[in-house]
């Protein structure tokens, strides 16, 4: 008799980032996303469900819709109810958002807190991870973030709001926008003493920042050791005071602005070397390749301000637009917001250093590559930056694209091009294989070439590639 050593594949898988809240948790059963509501949260849930407050939020587009399903679908003992929330296409994290995205997520959180207060509830979490972008706009995804308001109790999520939203936004607006990346190291939000230390002196002249960041940090230090020794009577707060606090947080947040000028790439779309004819032909070739590609999700790598993302969106595709530059991505986000475009999500991501796995067991916040849902990778004028600017071998770039999606539309920019000449200007050319023939050979391991066209009026080439079936050779990390 032989006994198989393989364990059966579990068909209920709990989300690895969903363990903090005792009210319930998120899991997948046979691929479908559910949220279990635990018995401990039952009184709050029943009151919420009967109040119509959740429906109000869903109708206003502030909360992800859900439907109540059979409690028999629960994943753990003592369930009270099970809901099936509408699934987000791509889960993203605050350290991947533009300034405007983080700010809109912050204002959404406050708006929900204000509405909860008016409806007799309290928003118990103000975590930036509870907000996701859905159809181009932020929504709250944690349906269990509410509890019945207890008269006199202060806002439990005040500190979290300051650490997850106000402090990083203030640093981005008043010090340097790249400080948004602090959220990648501080998963519980930017420590307020650090923010107070890094903020410029003029921020002390702003009442909101002075109170909610600088004095808040001092109060934390001052009372940090005394809580258990002399158990204080918890301070009380009237609904009017709470409304005033939320109103002040809102105006403080609204006054934090950042203009996307002067970053390396924000004005590339206006100042590139494309002649008008070449630009038009590139548009035509990209459109043709996209039209003949399959699937619905396009990842536009090095999307800049979104010229080609818009073409893909115009063809009915959902687009994730990645760019390393805060200015370019912010301009892109403003464009989609102004036009009401709902199928494009601009993100600030360095393709050469994608978000890693973070948090508990490095699994709480998943690596970008594990979240990849692309059908097509669009990599226009980006390969030379990786190959020559970052010294990544063409074969590795090919493997990465093959890992991201079954199809790729890639622009090859030869060495003779003035932009590549600029990259090579101050360094020795150690890239003998960086030629169109070398590109074909390097990408040939993972992809077959479906079409190849030189852009008229330029030396550049657009190639449409399809991943070979089965894992390509040499790709150890195949998922």
């Amino acid at each position, binding site marked *: 008799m032989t006994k198989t050593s393989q364990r059966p594949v579990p068909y209920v898988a709990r989300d690895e980032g969903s363990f903090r809240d005792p009210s319930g948790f998120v899991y997948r059963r046979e691929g479908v996303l559910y949220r279990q509501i635990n018995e401990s949260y039952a009184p709050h849930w029943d009151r919420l469900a009967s109040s119509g407050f959740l429906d109000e939020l869903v109708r206003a587009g502030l909360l992800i819709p859900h439907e109540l399903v059979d409690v028999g679908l629960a994943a753990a003992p003592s369930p009270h109810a099970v809901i099936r929330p509408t699934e987000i296409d791509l889960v993203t994290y605050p350290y991947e958002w533009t300034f405007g995205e983080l700010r809109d997520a912050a*204002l959404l959180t406050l708006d929900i807190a204000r509405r909860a207060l008016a409806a007799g509830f309290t928003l118990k979490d103000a975590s930036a991870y509870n907000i996701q972008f859905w159809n181009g706009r932020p929504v709250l995804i944690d349906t269990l973030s509410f509890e019945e308001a207890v008269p006199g109790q202060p806002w439990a999520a005040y500190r979290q709001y300051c650490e997850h939203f106000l402090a990083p936004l203030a640093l981005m607006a008043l010090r340097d926008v790249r400080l948004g990346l602090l959220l990648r190291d501080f998963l519980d939000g930017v420590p307020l003493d650090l923010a107070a230390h890094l903020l410029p002196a003029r921020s002390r002249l702003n009442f909101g920042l002075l109170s909610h960041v600088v004095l808040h940090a001092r109060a934390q230090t*001052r009372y*940090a*050791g*005394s809580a258990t020794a002399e158990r204080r009577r918890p*301070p009380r707060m009237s609904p*009017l005071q709470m409304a005033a*606090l939320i109103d*002040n947080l809102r105006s403080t947040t609204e006054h934090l602005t950042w203009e996307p000028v002067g970053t390396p790439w924000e004005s590339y779309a206006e100042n590139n070397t494309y002649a008008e004819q070449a630009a038009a032909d590139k548009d035509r070739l990209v459109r043709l390749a996209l039209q003949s590609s399959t699937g619905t999700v396009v990842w536009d790598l090095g999307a800049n301000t979104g010229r080609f993302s818009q073409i893909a969106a115009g063809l009915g595709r959902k687009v994730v637009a990645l760019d390393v530059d805060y200015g370019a991505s912010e301009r892109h986000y403003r464009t989609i917001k102004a036009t*009401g475009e709902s199928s494009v999500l601009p993100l600030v991501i360095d393709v050469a250093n994608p978000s890693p796995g973070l948090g508990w067991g490095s699994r709480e916040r998943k690596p970008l590559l594990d979240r990849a849902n692309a059908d097509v990778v669009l990599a226009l004028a980006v390969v030379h930056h990786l190959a020559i600017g970052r010294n990544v071998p063409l074969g590795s770039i090919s493997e990465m694209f093959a890992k991201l999606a079954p199809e790729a539309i890639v622009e090859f920019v030869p060495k003779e091009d003035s932009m590549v000449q600029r990259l090579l200007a101050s360094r020795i050319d150690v890239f003998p294989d960086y030629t169109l023939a070398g590109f074909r050979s390097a990408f040939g391991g993972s992809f077959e070439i479906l079409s190849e066209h030189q852009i008229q009026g330029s030396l550049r080439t657009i190639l449409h590639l399809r991943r070979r079936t089965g894992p390509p050779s040499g790709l150890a990390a195949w998922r």
Partner: protein
Amino acid sequence: MYLDPGSGSLILQVLIASILATPFLFRSQIRRLVRTMRGPERPPESPNENRS
């Protein structure tokens, strides 16, 4: 070190809120008065609702 950052947050929050409450009430009353004089108007909404 066992530090509790929560106590300071609670105390400061209540302190700030009590400073803000009176001017907030004052502004709300003025806004209400202006609204009554101007006639019915759409209340301020979330940024989401302005999007198509």
